[in-house]
């Protein structure tokens, strides 16, 4: 197992490098110029003086050939230096670490909610196939899959403010600073994320469970006289969750993408809103670091899922 993890870690290196190249080039190809944005100022009141813009480019190193820019960035990144934001002049490391906890918390809460709602719903759905519970659960799953998250988020905001005259408190606190306030702020966004994820998890669990319930070994378990609950929990569930878990790495990546929109809707100062702002202003150093982080997270997640997979299914061996 240790060897397997090592091999996977080594294989991840070229993937990460390829992704850095892609993000670097895509950003350079995009129209828009950070030097122009800076010269004009955030409210676009400044004067776009050709010489001033050239000076800013010089300062940011943007007038050097692309390969040089790329290797300078990679070289610094390898030493753990991700540069500084062209706008705030704070280091990228600071920008990210100060926002990271909120996004991590949001994504985790979303994923936990997705599993906590989706998996039981899928199980019940499969056990009561074509009954009212199943029909209702499938209806809601399709509904939440079909509705875009930003819209659900807006509707939830509208609903709570209109009906209960309540909206999430402003001003953000970290979980360990002010738990109650933090939960009230992140709760609605996590709920929207979680319900969307739950819709996917419920559908996958249902179909996987239905397949497993038709297997011969379930009949064997029943022929032993085991109670239906024991048959489901001990014999069916673990088999049924194998595909759900293995796909969860992919769904978690979608969930991460969802935080970008939800952080914007709920004005949560996390990585998602940082990414959106820096893309708008072509703040290269920040975007590059953020994309790099996302890539590493997704790769790590796949590794974790593979390890869980081996634990769930003894037929898989990584030696």
């Amino acid at each position: 197992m240790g060897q397997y993890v090592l091999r996977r870690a080594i294989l991840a290196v070229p993937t990460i490098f390829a992704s850095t190249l892609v993000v670097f080039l895509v950003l350079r190809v995009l129209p828009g110029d950070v030097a122009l944005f800076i010269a004009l100022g955030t409210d676009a009141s400044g004067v776009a003086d050709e010489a001033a813009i050239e000076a800013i480019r010089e300062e940011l190193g943007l007038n050097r050939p692309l390969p040089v820019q790329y290797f300078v960035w990679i070289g610094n990144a390898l030493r753990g230096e991700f540069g500084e934001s062209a706008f705030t002049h704070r280091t990228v490391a600071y920008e990210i670490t100060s926002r990271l906890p909120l996004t991590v918390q949001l994504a985790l809460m979303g994923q936990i909610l997705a599993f906590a709602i989706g998996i039981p719903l899928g199980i019940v759905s499969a056990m009561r196939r074509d009954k009212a519970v199943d029909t209702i659960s499938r209806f809601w799953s399709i509904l939440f899959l079909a509705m875009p998250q930003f819209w659900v988020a807006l509707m939830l905001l509208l609903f709570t403010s209109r009906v209960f005259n309540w909206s999430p408190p402003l001003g953000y606190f970290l979980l360990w600073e002010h738990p109650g306030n933090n939960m009230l702020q992140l709760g609605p966004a996590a709920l929207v994320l979680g319900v969307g994820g739950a819709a996917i998890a419920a559908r996958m669990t249902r179909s996987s469970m239905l397949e497993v319930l038709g297997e011969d070994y379930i009949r064997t378990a029943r022929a032993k006289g085991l109670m239906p609950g024991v048959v489901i929990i001990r014999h069916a569930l673990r088999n049924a969750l194998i595909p759900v878990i293995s796909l969860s790495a992919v769904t978690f990546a979608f969930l991460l993408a969802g935080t970008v929109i939800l952080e914007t809707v709920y004005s949560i100062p996390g990585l998602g809103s940082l990414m959106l702002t820096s893309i708008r202003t072509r703040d290269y150093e920040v975007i590059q670091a953020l994309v790099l982080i996302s890539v590493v997270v997704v790769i790590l997640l796949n590794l974790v899922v593979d390890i869980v997979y081996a634990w769930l299914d003894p037929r898989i061996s990584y030696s």
Partner: protein
Amino acid sequence: MTTLLEVQDLRTQFTTDEALVKAVDGVSFTLEEGKTLALVGESGCGKSVSALSVMRLIPWPPGRIVSGSIVFDGVDLLALREHEMGRIRGKEIGMVFQEPMTSLNPVLTIGRQLTEALELHLGMSRYDANQRAAELLRQVGIPDAESRLAQYPHQFSGGMRQRVMIAMAISCNPKLVIADEPTTALDVTIQAQVLELMKELTQRLGVSLIIITHNLGVVARYADDVNVMYAGKIIERGSAAQVYANPSHPYTLGLLKSVPRLDQPKTESLDPIQGQPPDLGNLPPGCAFQPRCRYAVERCTADTPILESVGDGHEAACWQIAEVAAAH
């Protein structure tokens, strides 16, 4: 001799989009304690459904036991509630299934799959159940039992898995073991071993056995009594000796003639039964075998024959019994 299992006029049906399939249509049989009964017939003749009906493991939907009675050890199984049936399954009646490759749970150890029934039915502690599980594996001839308990099904060969299935079936000292085509999926050499093992164990433990098979060699060697099934009905029954020496239904005769024999000259060609098994959702009127039967007469297309005695405890359902007897 006491009767252990008495099945009366059992009818099990499946509702499909096209038709009502009468998989088991008025089957009656009895099994004496300590005896071995064989249910014989082609695929789809209702023999497996009969066995699953006794266990009340017919999946609903689409299947349902619509009428009849199944009295096991003085208890009417069809009148039991589901949780009461749970105390019969695995405890009083053990079952061995056809597919050893898929009938064991791939993600649980062999040990766990053996101990769960012991803990449930015999109230054993985890430790005692483990000891007993190892003992069971030794009984079914699996060497190195203790370390095998921690392994998973994919680490066992097909024959070994079927031995595990047998160990599971006998683990709680049942009165009856039902083996549904226990050797069909195995190599020929392994088949004999597994059958010998089952015969030996059931005899030693005094367990009654129902073997479901399409293999007439199995019947001849291991069964006391034989029920031949066709299209959801029993069409001939008797002791194994009677049915072999004196097959009285054209279908039984056809089955026996389809088996290659070493004691016949090589020039003699096989005489298989013509045609296909009938569609159970769309049976012909009269005798279900009549379209394939070379003895069929006018009456066979109109009236359904019922079982009639042709000897001491030997019965067949055919209008042409005399002609069949004269022909062989």
